[in-house]
Each structure stands twice: as C-alpha cells, then as structure tokens.
C-alpha cells in the first residue's frame, strides 16, 4: 500500500511540478533578467554589464519619481472608485436579482471583453471627443452651448477608461463572496433588532471582505500598470508608470526601464504580501462558512 501511495505521490509531483517549472521559467527568468539589467550601465547605444545604481538614482530624484507617485495615486483612487461601483453591481446581482437572472447578468458583464482592449479604449476616445457623439448630444439637448473639453484627454477620461476596463472583473470575486453568505445570517441579524443598514455593516460587509480584497488587487494591479488608457484617453502629456517605462524603452534606455520595472514589481510584491495575510483570513472565513 505504501508503495502505491509513493507512486501516487510521485505522479502528483510530476503532474504539479511540470507546470510549476514552466511558470517559474516564464515568470521568474524575465524578472531576474530585469533585476540584473537594472544595475547595468547605460551607454550611448545599448548598455554595459556592471553594478551601478545610476538608473535608480536618476529615477528617484528625477521627474519620473513624480510619475510613480502619480501612478500610485491614480491606481489607489480609481481602485476605490471601482470597488464602490463593483460592490454595488455585485450586491444588486446577489440580493435584488431573481436567481434565474444571475447567470445571464454575469455573462453580460463579460461581453465588453469580446472586443479587443485597445479598440475599446479608442472607441471611448471617439465617444468623448470634442466632436464625438456625447458632446453632440449634450449640445443638442441644450445642456451646453459649446463642446466640453474635459471629457477627453483629462483625468475624467482616464478614470472612466480605467473603470470600464477593470471594474467588470472586480464584480466576480465580490459576487462570489456575497453569494456565499447564508441568508439566514441576515435574517438572524434582523431578528436581533438590527435594521438592514446595520445588518449590512455588521454582517454582510465583513463577510464579503475576502472578495473585496481580491477585487482590489485586480483593480490596483491593472490600473497601476496601465499603458493604453493613459496614452489614448489621457492625451500627450499624461504619464503613468507604464508610459514612463515605454518611453524609456523608446529611447533605448534599457537599464532605466528595468529599474522602473523593478520598482513597480517591488511595489506589487509588497501589496501581494499584504494580501496574503488577508488570504489566510479568506481561507479562514471560507472554513467558517463551511465552504
């Protein structure tokens, strides 16, 4: 019997090991290369192996650092915005929609993703432009006498683009944890004298936090690394981290691009570590909910 168990263990190890190895190769190798190159020295054309902190120094006191700060701010604030709207959508799907409609609604949420992401972003640019349908409509309706400029190439456009790009993804984890909540917990809370708002704050919200954290990671990672939305909807001067990295690549400053990437990856890792602490909580909550 123990031989059989061993053989099974071996089988499992191979079955698990191969994909893990492939993932490691595909993810870790480029990351390590990036890290190494970030310490190389830039030359007029190309770069030279070595160990130099020059790129980091330049990054941290140059204008690019403010791009990092700005990216951080945009990612954080848009994530909060997306969380609020995704939560509302997930809440309505879970509690207000008849169960027979849930599937179709969740499917509808994924329909935009059938269209290529860059094309979707460009169509926003068309919709929001000075001569675009939205401005035309507003003028036709008499709400404004001249085209509104801030609809496109503005923070507004970037936030709208980010919400459209990532919010639908965030609905799913929140919906999952909301629909795992036993309705009788809500009824029990009512019976103990807690009206719906108090019940939401004391029972529903805490129990849905695992999904909220997962959604927050989706949104933040997406928004922080965004290139297309900021470039297409933000306009020429609008730079987020992703744009700064691509423009470094455009001028062949590979060590600089690598250094910036390393900083971004470092930030993400830090966030993921934080999340892992909550991930434990998630397992814990999952057990408590009997799932």
């Amino acid at each position, binding site marked *: 019997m123990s031989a059989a168990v061993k053989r099974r263990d071996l089988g499992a190890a191979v079955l698990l090991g191969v994909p893990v190895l492939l993932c490691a190769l595909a993810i870790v190798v480029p990351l390590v290369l990036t890290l190494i190159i970030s310490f190389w020295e830039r030359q007029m054309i190309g770069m030279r192996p070595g160990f130099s902190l020059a790129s980091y120094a330049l990054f941290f006191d140059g204008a690019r650092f403010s791009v990092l700060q700005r990216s951080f701010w945009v990612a954080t604030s848009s994530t909060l915005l997306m969380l609020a709207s995704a939560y509302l959508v997930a809440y309505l799907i879970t509690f207000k929609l008849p169960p027979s409609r849930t599937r179709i609604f969740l499917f509808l949420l994924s329909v935009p993703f059938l269209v290529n992401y860059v094309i979707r972003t460009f169509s926003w640019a068309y919709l929001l432009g000075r001569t675009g349908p939205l401005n035309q409509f507003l003028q036709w309706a008499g709400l404004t006498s001249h085209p509104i400029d801030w609809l496109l190439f503005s923070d507004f456009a970037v936030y709208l683009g980010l919400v459209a790009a990532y919010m639908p993804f965030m609905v799913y984890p929140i919906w999952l944890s909301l629909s795992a909540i*036993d309705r009788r*917990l809500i*009824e*029990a809370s009512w*019976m103990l004298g807690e*009206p719906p708002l108090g019940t939401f704050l004391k029972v529903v919200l805490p129990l849905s936090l695992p999904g909220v954290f997962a959604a927050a990671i989706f949104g933040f990672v997406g928004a922080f690394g965004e290139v297309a939305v900021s470039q297409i909807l933000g306009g020429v001067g609008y730079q987020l981290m992703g744009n700064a990295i691509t423009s470094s690549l455009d001028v062949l400053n590979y060590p600089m691009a690598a250094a910036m990437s390393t900083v971004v990856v470092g930030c993400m890792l830090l966030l993921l570590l934080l999340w892992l602490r909550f991930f434990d909580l998630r397992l814990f*909550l999952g*057990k*408590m909910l009997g799932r």
Partner: protein
Amino acid sequence: MSPSPLLHVHAVRKQFGKQVTAAGVDLQVANGEFFTMLGPSGSGKSTILRMIAGLEHPDSGRILINGQDVTDLPPWRRDLGMVFQQYANFPHMTVAQNIAYGLRRRKLDREAVRKRVSELLDLVSLPGFEERPVTRLSGGEQQRVAIARALAPRPRLLLLDEPLSALDEKIRREMQAQLKDIQRVTGTAFVYVTHDQEEALTMSDRVAVLNWGHLVQVDEPHALFRHPRTKFVATFFRGSNVVEGKLVGQGRSSIFECSAFRVALPELPSKFAHPPAVAIRGEDLRINGHPSPEDITFDAVLERVVYRGVYTDYQLRLVDGQVVTASATSGQNLPAGQKVQVAVRPEGITPLQAEPA
C-alpha cells in the same frame, strides 16, 4: 374582557403560487407557554413561524403580540427571538460577540454586557466559552450559542424552527431536556417547530398538528396522543390504529359498527369522518387477557409478531380484512397464525372527524 394573549395569529393565509401554505390559521399562545407546531415536511410550519417573525408577510389575516397588531412591522421591530435549524451564528464573531449582538442596541455599558453574556452561557451550560471562535464548536454547542444569542435581549417570544434536527440522536435527547429547562427557568414563551412527534409530545404544553396549511388539532400532548381528532392526526402518531366502519342510528349517541365490533359513541363530533372511522391506540388492544364486563371484545387472527425490544407489535387481521396493530410489553409468547381474542375499553375508542378542507 379577557386579557389579550401573548401571541394571537388570526385567520392568517399565505399562498406561494398555487401552493397554500397557511389556510386561515388561528392560534393563540399564552405567556410562558411551550407551544409546538408539528407536521410533516411541507405542511407549512416554517412559513407560519416566519410570518410570526415578520420574515414573510401574510396574504391576509393579522398577527397580534400583546394585543398590538404587528402584521406590518418589520422583523427588527418585533422584539422576538429566533433560532434556526442550521444555527446561523455569525461566523466572523466569537461566542461572546454573537451573544452580545442583540444587546448592542440596548445601550448597555460593557460590564453589563459582559455580565449578561456570562449569565446566558451559564444558562446554556457553556460557561467560559466567551472567547471561542463560534465555528470551532460542535453542532450541539453551536445551537446552544444560537439559543443564548436569541434569548440575550429578553425577547417577548422565542421562535424555534427545528432547532435540534441537525443534531445526532444522543445530543438531541440531551438538548430536548435542556431546552425545556431553559424555557422553564426563563419563563419565555416558546413557539417550537418540529416534525418529530416524540419531541413535540415530551417538550410541549400544547401541540398544534399541521397538514396542508391547516391546523388540524391543537391540544395538550396527552389529549392529542390519546384522542386524535382526525385520521391524519391518528396516523401521524406511531402506534395508532384507524378502523373504518359505519354509523348505525342517529341522535346524540350513535353506534359505530364494523365487522368486528360495535360500540356506542357517547359524543359525536360535528363532522364525522367519511367513511366513518375510529382510532384505537395499539397499547389499548389487549390480546387474550381477562376482559372486564364493560370491555369490547372481538376475534382476530394474529398475522405477524414484530419484536421491538421493550414492546412487541402484534399484527391482527379483523374479519373484514382490516389490519390493526396491538403492542404489549414483550414476554407474552404468542405464535403467529393463531386466532386470538382482543379486548379494548370503550374509552380507548376515539371517533374521528373529517379533515378540515
């Protein structure tokens, strides 16, 4: 005018689609009473309980608590406690936080809350469990936490929906006794839902038997057990026999006649079952005993003997083919296939009414 009862459910109807789950239910529960609703699955027990709780709204009829009409009051304004079958404790809270949940709105200071929580943990025999995560408890312990939680704010009435049915046999027996004690000590009125006849009989002051959304009979346990009013109630309790026959003669005391025996029924129910039938408990049928003069006796064939431990069941075939089961303390050695004499006292024969339509 008599004081209004604690709970008065008046002509309450509820229908889901075509399914009538409460067909004009009337019931009253007094202060401190242990009231049980007993019925098979789907008979509407939970629906009636949930309407009392305010979790469902009746299509028509009123629900009054202490004379106050609460029909349109939401559950969080009714001051009732509820215990669910699957505990429904808040999984993200400790035992103490669960029990204190309903106290938060009472604006008690922390010391008072702590005191009340430990008081309740003593009541449900879980002293010192305050800081345990509620999910790490056994089923019986979880249900006791749920009971303590529901009782903490001193509800006017505690509603329990099959609270013990998720527990295994042994724990269930222990919990039955404990629940009864808790009810007696706190003096809280309980409205208890179960489909377990023994649970209903052992714990309750009064039992309401439900079928298809009708309250078929509301009585004290012994009355219900000894004198079922309809065929449904009679067959619901294990060990009852229904014998069909016909009515002979009219007037205040009619005579019920079947192939095996005739009996004068002292008082007739208003709507006699159709076909006419009577109920006889298996323990009341005595085989080859020494009948006293007033006993009714008849012959039957002993078809089968089923040993059940303390009791043995004897399946008897009457002359017209109807089968009844007598039970007696084991020990009497009777071979199957034999002709026997059966005796029953007239009080043991209960006339049955028609089922409510």
